[in-house]
């Protein structure tokens, strides 16, 4: 029999603390759909997606209802399109994006990821075509997400790709100027991209994966925040070792809930279960914020001195709790700090408590990177590339995933407001010093060599 406390604490997490299953993402391999005829490829890809994912939404809703845990988003991730569509031109790549968008709409999911290229060491024809297609593809579809991996710890940083991505981010924002550059909110540049991320916009199905796999993304910043507050109230004199323990135990519970439902969805759909990505992923809702955790741990605001230390402790405790809860933890697993998607982080940025420089420092210990940052519309492609290069360097040197999702909002300047809508939220545009000028460093091109793996200081 269950104890009263076991039942009540679980219900409180669900009812008051926004515990949910943030995403169930069905990874679908399109490798065997390949053709040099784009019509053949898109027909095969659509059929594959619409067959395998036909019951994804209803299955998630049914199992979510059985356990009383809402499955907020259902999504699809496909093989990197630059690889499976290698023969195509940029115009044909846009057609592929539209086919993915249609298939995703037909099965009722809100995003499909995998409009992706892996170019950390060099760019092949398909990679160039895909990157060239990104601005139009993201402007003419609503569900497609793109991710480009430009660096790894083993390969170094492909600076030619970094510059190209600076230009591509800028062009993508300009293609969606009427929506505050929304296209760029669906485009992420990565270092050390994992092959099994369920969260958007970085989800794609790695080439080492099988035919189809379910990866789930669990969230729960509100649950962690309340657990910290309860522990501080209950234990006067509590120290950071104990607080880390509280965060670990909370992460354990949240991970277990995600794995339970993910496994059952996978079983019902007849596909393999992959990983739980335990990430503190906020939404623009009060009480569902990573930024609020910084206040609970005694800081005046995220961005104040101490923020990097808080985030380091939080990220590590989340990973430890998650790793104990499930043998298959993957994806990004840690804490996200996406500015526009988190009410408190967006507010801290608007107040001036959080600068882009402090955010960059924090990304050295968080699980992703410079995420959902609205920048002035006159930010140059070279400055965007240089900022991406900074973020990639943090990932490459520290052997971790980092990413940049930057939105230069067309026609707007620092201090003005940008709205992206829905889960993407809204944010005040942050100032980027030296952001509008040229940057000769990124014009050198070539590849920053892979870092030494000894003499680690």
């Amino acid at each position, binding site marked *: 029999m269950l104890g009263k406390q076991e039942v009540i604490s679980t219900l409180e997490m669900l009812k008051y603390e926004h515990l949910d299953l943030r995403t169930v993402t069905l990874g679908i391999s399109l490798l065997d759909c390949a053709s040099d005829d784009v019509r053949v490829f898109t027909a095969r890809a659509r059929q594959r997606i619409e067959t395998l994912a036909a019951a994804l939404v209803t299955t998630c809703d049914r199992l979510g209802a*059985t356990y009383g845990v809402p499955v907020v988003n259902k999504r699809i991730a496909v093989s990197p399109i630059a690889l499976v569509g290698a023969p195509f031109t940029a115009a044909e790549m846009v057609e592929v994006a539209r086919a993915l968008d249609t298939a995703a709409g037909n099965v009722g999911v809100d995003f499909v990821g995998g409009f992706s290229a892996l170019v950390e060491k060099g760019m092949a024809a398909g990679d160039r075509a895909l990157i060239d297609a990104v601005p139009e593809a993201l402007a003419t579809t609503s569900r497609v997400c793109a991710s480009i991996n430009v660096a790894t710890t083993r390969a170094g940083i492909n600076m030619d790709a970094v510059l190209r991505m600076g230009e591509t981010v800028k062009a993508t924002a300009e293609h969606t100027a009427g929506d505050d550059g929304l296209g760029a909110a669906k485009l992420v540049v990565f270092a050390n991209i994992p092959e099994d991320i369920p969260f958007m916009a970085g989800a794609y199905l790695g080439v080492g994966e099988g035919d189809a796999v379910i990866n789930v993304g669990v969230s729960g910043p509100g649950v962690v925040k309340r657990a910290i507050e309860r522990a501080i109230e209950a234990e006067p004199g509590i120290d950071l070792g104990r607080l880390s323990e509280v965060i670990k135990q909370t992460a354990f519970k949240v991970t277990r809930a995600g794995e339970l439902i993910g496994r059952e969805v996978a079983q019902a759909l007849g596909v393999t279960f992959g990983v739980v990505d335990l990430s503190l992923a906020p939404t623009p809702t009060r009480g569902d914020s990573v930024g609020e955790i910084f206040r609970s741990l005694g800081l005046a605001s995220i961005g104040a001195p101490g923020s990097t230390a808080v985030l380091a402790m939080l990220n590590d405790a989340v990973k430890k709790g998650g790793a104990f809860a499930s043998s298959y933890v993957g994806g990004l697993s840690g804490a996200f700090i996406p500015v526009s998607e988190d009410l408190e982080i967006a507010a801290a940025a608007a107040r001036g408590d959080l600068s882009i420089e402090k955010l960059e420092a924090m990304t050295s210990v968080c699980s992703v990177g410079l995420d959902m940052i609205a920048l002035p519309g006159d930010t140059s492609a070279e400055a965007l590339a240089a900022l991406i290069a900074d973020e990639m360097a943090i990932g490459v040197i520290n052997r971790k995933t980092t990413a940049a999702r930057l939105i230069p909002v067309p026609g707007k300047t620092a201090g003005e407001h940008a709205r992206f809508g829905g889960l993407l939220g809204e944010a005040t545009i942050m100032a980027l010093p030296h952001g509008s000028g040229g940057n000769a460093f990124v014009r050198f091109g070539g590849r920053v060599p892979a870092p030494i793996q000894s003499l680690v200081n």
Partner: protein
Amino acid sequence: MTQAVISVLGEDRPGIIAAVSQALLDAGCNIRSVSQTLLQAVFGALFVVAMPDEVDEAALAHTLTAALEGLDLDVIVHAYPAGAAASRPHAEPFVVTTHGPDRPGIVAAVSGVLARYGVNVTDLQAVFEGGDRPEANAMIFQVDVPDSVSLAALKADLASAAERLGLELNVQHRRLFEIMNRI
């Protein structure tokens, strides 16, 4: 050997279990299972025991009453054959919880819906301490829902009963609580 179930009820104090189990030992009975609980200040326990052949229900009741005299306990002995539980259809374990204002009839209303669907209550904990503070008034029904029952229909009927009483009601598979709270 025949089997008996013994219920013991009284004001809680140290030594009740010791006294009852010693009396059962003295009567030659072997305790097979026990469930004891405290409700506010009331002690309640059920003992399932194997009785020696020469002891019958009335004799055991007499022995226990004599042995426990002075403890102010109500003791009832029922003989019942081993393996008497009726076989039930396969069912899935769910947890039905309610939160909301205390008023007469809420246990009856929820359990009435459960009974109509043939849903067996395996454990019920109800705490009414909060008056109009809904979070402090909770009922937790652990139930077995037969496979033949439509979960959606059961949920809908429970929800409408709950709505009439101003209760918030949840129905969730038990596995969620186990997997989140146990290693």
